């Protein structure tokens, strides 16, 4: 309990979050764009709002893509021990989760296009009553962990 888990995520996670942040920013750009076009065609409102929106999106994207990823990288920690999985995350609201191996129902890995490109995957650990995730692990490591957890979960099996 006293000292938290020790393993960190794959450093490439920062790239994933960076790209995701940028993509979100680009999608959000459609809003001021739509406003501008509509304003030009139909309305005659102030242009200020479009610039305000742009500024807001710029700030949001900077935070999402540049500021948060290193912080997230630092605070995400996990440990996979023989008998349990220990996960800690959250900067302001800190969450620490303990999942005994014998409670693990199944382990999934998941990766979208960005993660696949970078060779990363998210590990999803399900118990009968909850689901937990460890984002952005090296694909091989995730597959290996999936196997490990399945094996360990099987070994330490008693009753459901």
């Amino acid at each position, binding site marked *: *309990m*006293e000292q938290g888990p020790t393993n960190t995520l794959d450093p490439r996670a920062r790239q994933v979050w960076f790209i995701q942040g940028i993509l979100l920013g680009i999608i959000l750009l459609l809003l001021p764009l739509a406003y501008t076009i509509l304003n030009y065609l139909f309305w005659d409102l102030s242009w200020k709002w479009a610039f305000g929106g742009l500024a807001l999106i710029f700030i949001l994207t900077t935070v999402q893509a540049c500021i948060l990823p290193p912080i997230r990288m630092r605070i995400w920690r996990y440990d996979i*021990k*023989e*008998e*349990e999985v220990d996960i800690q995350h*959250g900067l*302001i*609201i*800190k*969450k*620490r*989760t*303990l*999942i*005994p191996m014998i*409670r693990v*129902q*199944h*382990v*999934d*890995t*998941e*990766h*979208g*296009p960005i993660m*696949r490109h970078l060779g990363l995957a998210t590990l999803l650990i*399900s*118990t*009968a*009553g*909850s*689901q*937990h995730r460890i984002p952005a692990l090296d694909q091989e490591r995730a597959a290996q962990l*999936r196997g490990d957890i*399945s094996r360990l*979960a*099987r070994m*330490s*099996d*008693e*009753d*459901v």
Partner: protein
Amino acid sequence: MSSYEHQHPAQILFASLKHLSSFLPPMALFALIRITEQGTRILFLFLLATLGLFVLLTLYNILGWRFFTYRYEAGYLHMRWGIFLKKERSIREERVQTINIRQGPLQRLFALVTLQVETAGGTEMSEVQLTAIPLPRAQDIKTALKSETEISSGTGEEGTEFRLSPGQLFLAGATSGNFFLLFSGLSLVFSQLIPIIPNSFWDLLFHTLTSTSLAAILLLILGLLFLSWLLSTLVFMVRNALFTIRRRDEELHISWGLITRKEVLLKLHRIQAIKITQGLLRQPFGFSTLTAEVAGGGTQNQNYKSVLAPLLREEQISWFLQHFLPEFHTALTPKPLPKRAHSRYLIRSTAPLVLIAIPLLFVPYGSLFLLLLPLALLYGHWRYKAGGLGLEGDQVVLRYRFLAQHQVLMPRSHIQSLQIQTNPLQRWKHLSSVRAHILSSPAATSFSLKDVDNGEVAKLWHWYSRS
């Protein structure tokens, strides 16, 4: 042992037809609406649209089929799927609850079957299906996943029994608190009936019984309240009459109801937690209700939260548990929350009120709203008082309150995962919130308690941790 394989290509047809069938009713309805204007042309259009949709769905399902592969070995079933988002899943035999094999008429044409594997849990992911595999293959997989069946020790002796006496039944109904709901319903009905109420009723109300209109209205409300209380008590009594619970070996038999008699057979190992609830109205009398959180076997099996005892006096609880569920014990009293959590509970209950009150201060009479403040403080204090955490042996007790006070008993072996959460203010005061997830149907649930002393949390963590 096998390598990753596709299902039978007929799967594409099955999936397309299944998807199509969900599109057809709204399309048919639309066609039906337009049939008067368009005549038979709409029929042609409808057929064309159906065909087009079918082609599209088939194309999509070809991809789905192409990317879905499975593999099995002794004790395992592995699956991979997903066109863009790749997913992999391994199911191991220990987790399998049921395996069903069934065959529809269309599948019979291709000599294929559906294999459905259910694992424990209320999550959407707790069920997987292979919809187009040959029967021998399905049987192979079933053998690969077949876990040894449980052996029950059928001694067959008659266990203890608990019956709710008519007096208790009445008390339980009278304090059930359901009448508030009924009251709002009755008031609505009454307001609709006003035009047809005979004048003699109003005469009676306004002149014979009372002198002022305020008193008349009060009397009316009280009358309606009494009526709804009476009705709800009656309904409760009819529904729960002859409540009987009996323990036999590893099973609890529960039956209740006067008109429709209901029966539930609860296997002991399916009980995940016991909840002792003191409703608002029951508190002054020291009455509690005992319910069980039950892990279900399937979606059609209702009644997950089974009532074990509709009404028990405080001193009866441990007797009841000893006789029916000796696996659980209530001897321990939860340790109350530390003093420094008190202010946090008070702030939590009053903060929303204050936030609402601030704009109201600028409205005439808006400041009257602040009269609710003492109530909110009282509520916060009350919740603080109820909060408690206790550990004994392999069982944890959480006590907390919303309006009713709940006390949840959870054995360690049924807690699926444990979560400790802190915000900066809690960290400053060395307090944490704890949350325990348990399996319950139809959806998994969790129980939590806020602002527990960090020392106690550490104890809980070590108690739960295996290393």
